[in-house]
């Protein structure tokens, strides 16, 4: 067997791992006459959640419901609906959960506020330590250390 067989095989396998990126986008089947509409469509489908496979956006999902909802978005954009109207249409039916970016509300209050609370507390903790340490040094140098 050729000495280079396994290294070559490894290279071929490595390259084949990247071949999956060649597939066609799910968006290609939609035709827009205006690039603004196209942009709206892209933005909406990427920021709305597919409720069947919840960790995918409508743009990524192959679920039949995601397909139906993409069609709904497409028709509504062609009818001239705004992004806000389409978002409201989705929230009215599927709740706020359909939005990837959770809006600030009673239920998401903790999610938004807690990291800041910890950040501020951490800041004070560090500042105090820093201050006390310096204070200690100063006291020591000035001879008032006891």
């Amino acid at each position, binding site marked *: 067997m050729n000495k280079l067989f396994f290294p070559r095989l490894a290279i071929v396998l490595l390259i084949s791992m990247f071949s999956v990126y060649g597939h066609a986008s799910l968006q290609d089947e939609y035709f827009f006459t205006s690039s603004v509409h196209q942009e709206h469509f892209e933005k909406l489908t990427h920021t709305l959640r597919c409720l069947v496979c919840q960790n995918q956006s409508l743009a990524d999902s192959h679920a039949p419901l995601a397909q139906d909802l993409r069609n709904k978005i497409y028709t509504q954009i062609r009818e001239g609906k705004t992004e806000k109207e389409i978002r409201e249409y989705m929230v009215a039916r*599927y*709740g706020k959960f359909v939005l990837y970016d959770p809006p600030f509300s009673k239920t998401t209050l903790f999610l938004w506020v807690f990291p800041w609370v910890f950040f501020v507390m951490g800041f004070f903790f560090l500042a105090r330590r820093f201050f006390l340490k310096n204070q200690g040094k100063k006291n020591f140098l000035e001879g008032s250390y006891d």
Partner: protein
Amino acid sequence: MLRIKFLSVISVVILFSLFLAILAKNLFQDPQKLPSALLEKNIPNFRVPTLDSEKIFLESGDFIGHFSILNVWASWCASCIEEHKAWMKISQQDRSIFLYGLNYKDQKIAAQKWLEQHGNPYRKSGIDFLGDVAIDLGVYGTPETFVIDPSGKVLYRYVGVVTDDVWDHVLKPLIKKNKGAHE
């Protein structure tokens, strides 16, 4: 000095555990079972032909004047056959119940055969061939079951298989409780 330090450590610990507790609670919630966005809202307007006849319709008006149940099903849906026994039993036990079906994205003939073969617990089943009515209802998977009050308001949505247990302990008590409020 020591006391201040002690208090601040304690308060940080309490806050942090509170934060963790909230996260943990959400961790154990089933994200596949979402509350309906239609709760306390009127059932959307629709009118579709039924599996029984092209001339008989299932429409929003059918839900007025009594408590109703709307069950979204399809002949291709494996879990629907699982809950079918429960619906047969429920409809036979209580003939006064208004149980409607919404046949979701199905072939009409396949759906009719399914009912013939397994029995038909529904007063009527509307045909939602394109799934448009289901989208207006916020349906994201079959089976789903809606409980609707006499004014046409959605009281509850159950996602998944309705077993005898779910009926006895969730849906039936809910209707009973709200019946009391309506009389």
